[in-house]
């Protein structure tokens, strides 16, 4: 695995990134000056460092490892966690805005940041011992280390409770022996640390921090994805891995552990998906004003206006929903079911926007000249991971009826 990529090794597009977010209902007025400064900061970074190379990175399916350090320097890893552990100490809206701006560029880049911040740093912060927090969080925040989150298994996706990855006492009083395999794990091929969910001898799920280099631990890469090609995905294979007992996170047991992290990540995804929808809309709007057919810009035809108007309507609704969820998160009042609703709605909305926007670009929408098809393919992963579209509906259904339709 090459960990020494650089901007120069990729083809740099010389097409300027003209992105500007739509703000039909003057939602910017609901943000603080600081939120807006953070947004322009991440947007400037994306335009300068990522937009020129993202298409080439995705086409080649190479993980641009060098951006890990850049994202760390910028503060995109765990911005909502406390300063004392080297994190940002900002609010949840800030975190959301960062994910939105990153996913505006590419869902794979956002995935890298989501996994690091919400699925690796957050559980360590929330459930880890003081020693674990001090050891891992500052390095993860700076991007000196990359982390991954192992929950899904080959035979247990939507139903993680059935997991078979397990650990037992090594008998020396100092270690446990970990066995099993995780699949579809973002960042795994490059990760220095993995937060792994596994069952102890009593069958209770615990979180355990596994480090690269531990004997019997390997991370084979999953190739040939048609989606999230700028993000590396792989397996985590544990073959009698001897892990020190102090690597077990003391603060949680049961499915509550991974689900708590997923709440934080899903919240970020709801902002992120909004970002990719806005990029598709912005691209289609600009294109439709410039592309002339039958003697006038295609933006002047009713069928195209219908697409644009409906896209913007859906984006505007999602902006309001997402901002409100951010306020509830800041107040500590957002429920998991509310987060499910936003994740499900926004990703589905983004997929529809991407599909309509792509059509508006005609043949041009098929090429890598424009970001839409890449967004569309990326969103197929986003609608699948962190709870599929169906599963989130079942969560809402159970929340409003009190009836469990999962099984």
């Amino acid at each position, binding site marked *: 695995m090459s960990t020494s990529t650089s901007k120069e090794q990729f083809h740099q597009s010389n097409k300027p990134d003209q992105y500007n977010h739509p703000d039909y209902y003057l939602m910017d007025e609901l943000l603080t*000056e600081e939120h807006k400064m953070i947004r322009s*900061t991440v947007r400037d970074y994306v335009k300068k460092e990522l937009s020129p190379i993202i298409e080439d990175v995705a086409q080649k399916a190479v993980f641009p490892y060098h951006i890990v350090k850049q994202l760390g320097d910028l*503060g995109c890893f765990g911005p909502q966690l406390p300063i004392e552990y080297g994190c940002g*100490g900002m609010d949840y809206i800030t975190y959301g805005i960062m994910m939105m701006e990153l996913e505006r560029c590419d869902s794979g880049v956002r995935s890298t940041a989501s996994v690091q911040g919400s699925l690796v740093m957050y559980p360590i912060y929330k459930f880890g011992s003081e020693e674990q927090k001090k050891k891992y969080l500052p390095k993860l925040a700076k991007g000196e280390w990359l982390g991954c989150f192992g929950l899904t298994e080959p035979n247990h996706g939507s139903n993680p409770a059935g997991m078979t990855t397990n650990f037992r006492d090594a008998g020396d009083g100092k270690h446990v022996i970990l066995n099993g395999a995780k699949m579809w794990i973002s960042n795994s091929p490059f990760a220095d640390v993995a937060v792994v969910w596994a069952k102890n001898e009593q069958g209770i799920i615990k979180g355990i921090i596994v480090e690269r280099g531990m004997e019997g631990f390997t991370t084979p890469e999953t190739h040939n994805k048609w989606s999230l090609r700028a993000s590396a995905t792989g397996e985590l294979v544990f073959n009698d891995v001897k892990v020190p007992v102090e690597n077990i996170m003391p603060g949680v047991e049961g499915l509550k552990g991974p689900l708590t992290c997923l709440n934080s990540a899903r919240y970020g995804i709801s902002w992120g998906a909004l970002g990719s929808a806005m990029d598709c809309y912005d691209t289609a709007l600009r294109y439709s004003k410039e592309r002339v057919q039958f003697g006038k810009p295609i933006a002047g035809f009713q069928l195209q206006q219908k697409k644009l108007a409906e896209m913007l309507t859906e984006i505007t609704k999602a902006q309001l929903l997402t901002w409100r969820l951010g306020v509830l998160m800041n107040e500590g009042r957002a429920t998991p079911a509310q987060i499910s609703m936003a994740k499900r709605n926004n990703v589905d909305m983004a997929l529809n926007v991407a599909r309509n926007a792509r059509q508006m670009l005609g043949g041009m929408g098929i090429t890598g000249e424009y970001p839409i098809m890449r967004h569309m393919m990326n969103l197929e992963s986003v609608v699948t991971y962190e709870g599929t579209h169906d599963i989130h509906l079942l969560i809402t259904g159970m929340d409003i009826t009190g009836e469990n339709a999962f099984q």
Partner: protein
Amino acid sequence: MSPIQKRDFMKILVCISNVPDTTTKVTFTDNNTKFNTAGVQFIINPYDELALTRALEITEKQGGSVTAITVGLTDTEPSIRKALAIGAQDAVRINAEPTDAYFVAEQIAAYAKTENYDLILTGRESIDHNGGLVCGLLGEMLGIPSVNVITSIEVENGSATMERDIDGGKEKLTCKLPLVASAQKELTEPRIPNMRGIMAARTKPLKVVEPAASSATSATVAFELPAAKGGVKLIAAEQAEQLIEILHNEIKVI
């Protein structure tokens, strides 16, 4: 390590103006006498951002302080906060509408007079009115040398070595401090603030100063947009006859 020369510890003032984002659709109000700011995003003037970044690079290398100054009303505070987030130690806002270059220079000069800066940096021009006057005016008002449109600057032993582009080449000049210089595009790469910088900016001092007495020297009569650009007709290289035909019969230039 050589002992730090007194003059190497640099006290720098960077002039920041608050300008519409480069993608702004420009329209006017009040009988075409005022720029319509509705819905417009404002940013730090890009050349000023370069001046600020270079100032930070200099002080990071040899010690010193960077103060950002702007002449503007409260709506300019996001830009000055951003200057703090990028790394300026403190900031000053002269609480007045920046009516023209002379007024702005006068206000900055009045403040700078009492502060003994070693170096004052501006952008080569602000991308709204593109006057490019403040640097020269400041030099005159403060009685110090001014050097326009520099592409590099190094400071040592109380003087600065700068470069600028001239027709067909480069000019290299040295000049004793204090001086005022304006930044050209090549001066450095702009620096993007990070979260730590944005957090720190919350508590950095931003001093608001009332403007010095001054009288207007100019007034805007009217703004006008340039005529819309004509369409472009592309003719393939192998169809030169067609080009000649158009130039001859349609445009009648040959």
